[in-house]
């Protein structure tokens, strides 16, 4: 169906040292993406430079469209997807804000676009550094959001995202979120899978079998729908309900895609949540993104000191994995949730808010505490997590909830 010849970027699996932005670009090449639209923005810029270089070098046989802004980035990809293309882009912060109009529309069009958010704190204060505020601000727009911990996970998840997005029971766009600065520029050892293996894992694109803009299959895409009276209201509900159902379908699809990745490529990543040292844990931290590495080190150290602490990392943030999270946290007496962003309306972190809501379906009611740290590029060190562990432990002892701890407030 795709008449385009596909040159091989490489034939064998190999090991390289690269940062998260380059890893994402390698994933795009391995996923045999048809069209990439780009506009540079810190800290994503090197990602689109890698893509441009890959295209220039013939490693990535994609149409690359250098547009005049992020709004057009996603608009070009919407058009391309409606013509059947597998598509990719990445952005962050102000770029995501400028993209918001087409961004908001993409999931409703049910287009399986994959877009990295190289997360960055939002303006203002003026800032060009990492933080989850951008991605978190669009958490209720109907995109799937996956948060990575490591450079390897960025590479693998970006490829897996196409299987998830293009699954017939899902057909939704996916944000692969990797932390600005810490993952975008942090170099690590990465295993690059062999293209043939990726081809076995990821079939050719199935992007526009439903809604298409194709003279061979003429249809109107997105007529006005809704209003009061007539068929509109029920039709609108059907679209919205279908979207919600697809989000829920995605939970099991994400799990099976991760299982396939392990089976075919040989690497295992947590699909929804990652329980870490939760055996017999009395209390736990909940983390998201690259901070989880330092947090795990802190948990290891605390365990050595005899503290019964564990950690649950949230990989799939939207749809929110309620059951998996509740299962992972079963039996703890206190939970400290560490956010890299702020929920202004609730005076806590947004992940904290989600965890609280999820716990409504749990049998027990553990004590909870919201930690906010790592804003605008601030480092979250083992020391910060040791404090978080100590405070959460105190909560467990006292059995009380509430309060917000701003982890970098005392940094000097």
């Amino acid at each position: 169906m795709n008449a385009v010849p596909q040159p091989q970027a490489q034939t064998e699996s190999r090991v390289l040292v690269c940062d998260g932005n380059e890893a994402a670009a390698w994933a795009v090449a391995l996923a045999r993406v048809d069209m990439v639209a780009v506009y540079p923005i810190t800290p994503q810029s090197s990602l689109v430079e890698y893509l441009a270089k890959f295209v220039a070098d013939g490693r990535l046989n994609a149409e690359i469209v250098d547009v005049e802004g992020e709004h057009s980035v996603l608009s070009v990809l919407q058009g391309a997807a409606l013509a059947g293309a597998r598509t990719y882009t990445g952005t962050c912060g102000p770029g995501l804000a400028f993209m918001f109009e087409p961004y908001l529309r993409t999931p409703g069009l049910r287009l399986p676009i994959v877009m990295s958010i190289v997360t960055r704190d939002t303006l203002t204060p003026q800032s060009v550094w990492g933080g989850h505020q951008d991605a978190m601000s669009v958490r209720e727009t109907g995109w799937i959001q996956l948060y990575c911990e490591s450079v390897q996970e960025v590479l693998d998840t970006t490829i897996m995202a196409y299987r998830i997005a293009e699954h017939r029971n899902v057909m939704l766009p996916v944000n692969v979120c990797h932390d600005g600065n810490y993952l975008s520029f942090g170099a690590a050892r990465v295993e690059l899978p062999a293209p043939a293996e990726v081809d076995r894992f990821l079939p050719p694109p199935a992007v526009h079998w439903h809604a298409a803009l194709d003279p061979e299959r003429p249809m109107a895409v997105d007529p006005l729908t809704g209003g009061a009276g007539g068929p509109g209201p029920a039709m609108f509900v059907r679209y919205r309900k279908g979207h919600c159902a697809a989000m829920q379908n995605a939970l099991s699809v994400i799990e099976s895609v991760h299982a396939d990745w392990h089976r075919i490529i040989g690497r295992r990543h947590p699909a929804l949540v990652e329980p870490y040292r939760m055996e017999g844990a009395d209390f736990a931290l909940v983390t998201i993104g690259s901070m989880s590495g330092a947090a795990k080190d802190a948990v290891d150290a605390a365990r050595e000191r005899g503290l019964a602490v564990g950690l649950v990392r949230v990989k799939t943030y939207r749809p929110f994995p309620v059951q998996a999270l509740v299962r992972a946290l079963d039996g703890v007496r206190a939970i400290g949730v560490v956010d890299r962003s702020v929920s202004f309306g609730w005076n806590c972190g947004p992940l904290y808010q989600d965890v609280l809501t999820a716990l409504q379906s749990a049998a027990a009611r553990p004590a909870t505490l919201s930690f906010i740290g790592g804003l605008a590029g601030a480092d979250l060190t083992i020391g910060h997590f040791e404090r978080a562990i100590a405070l959460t432990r105190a909560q467990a002892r006292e059995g009380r909830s509430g309060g917000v701890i701003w982890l970098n407030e005392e940094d000097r």
Partner: protein
Amino acid sequence: MPAYNTIAFRPELCNGCGDCMRTCAEVKTGSADSANARIQISADGDTLALALCRQCGDPKCVANCPAAALDKRLADGVIAWDGSKCVNCLLCTVGCAYGGIVYNAAAQHVVKCDTCAGDPACVRVCSTGALRYLTTARIYNEVGDLEDLFAPGLSGCQGCNTELVMRHALRRIGPDTVLATPPGCIPGMGSVGYNGQTGTKVPVFHPLLTNTASMLTGIRRQYRRLGRKVHAVALAGDGGAADVGFQSLSGAAERGEEILFICVDNEGYMNTGMQRSSCTPFGAWTSTTPVGERGRGKTQHAKNLPVIMMMHNCEYVATASTGFMEDLYAKLDRALAASERGFAYLHIYSPCTTGWRFPSQDNIEVARKAVESDFVLLWEFTPAAGLQLTRDVSHPVSISEYLRVLGKFRHLDDAEVHEIEAAVERNRQFITGLAQGQHPAMARLAADRADDTGARS
């Protein structure tokens, strides 16, 4: 059955000079005796009447002829007279209700107009425009059998000019098309449709108001990648092109995307209730530039979007009007061809009966007056040829001829009319200057530079 060209007469423009008759006689008989002309114009009460062969579709002269000397030629529609067969019975003259075939004493047989093989001498000498050779039949003959790719019964306002533009354009462009119709009158009248039903027979979509050219970029590029020839076409309003959609339009034009972008300029946000856009002209009433004790309509002149698009060095840029359909079709053809190589931009002025406040039957007349008064100039641009005027702009009718028929200008006082007049003149000079390769301002600039150089040396 094909359509044919014809000579049309507007008595209100005729000054009775008689040039047409003398020229006809000269061309057909060698003498300038008007009595021998195939065209006769004479007083008929208070007005003037034309006696001329209409080259009828169902000619009674031909039916009456017992000798088969008269024949309606299928190729060009001219009713031809064959002297070798004529028996001079004059029954043909009895059949004709227009005085189009008459006995001529000098020739000693009937004579009639043969349209001078498609270039009538009478029309050429008519200085007032009372006689016109209408060649719009070409449009019918070329596109009449093509399918109208919009469903019947779109819910446009009565007399909507935009609906006319849409139907003509898409019929010509054909079915191998993906059509973008950003929010505005065009989807508002049901082209994309409502609740699962559509008014268009080609793939059609609502882009956002802001991203029409970008979405078409992705579509066109993907089909090109697949080796498929699919036209990427926009039918957009002026708001979505000149205002909030301008960034994506400019970006796509700069990149030379292979898109045909048709801007249907009705000088405002007519679908949302007639608000001002940057294409709204000075003085115009809109719902956001209302007229009241202090308000006098829009206080700025319109943005000249086609000129701005020209400055992107697009493959093709043109302005057009439904008052001049042949010109419009010729430009549509060139724009479509250019969109196979790069960005093609066609700006069609589209009077709006509802938003401009004039009777719905006057739409084409308003479109024509806009052009005839130079309020709107018809031109085209290619990188090779530069800007060329496609209609003479040197003899405009008075601007008030145009303004007075539009309710949106009804409040204007003389000073405001003069302001518009001056702007129209500036624009005429600007475009004429570009057409001649030397904009007056540029010439002045060059002169200043020369002076500076002289002063320094």
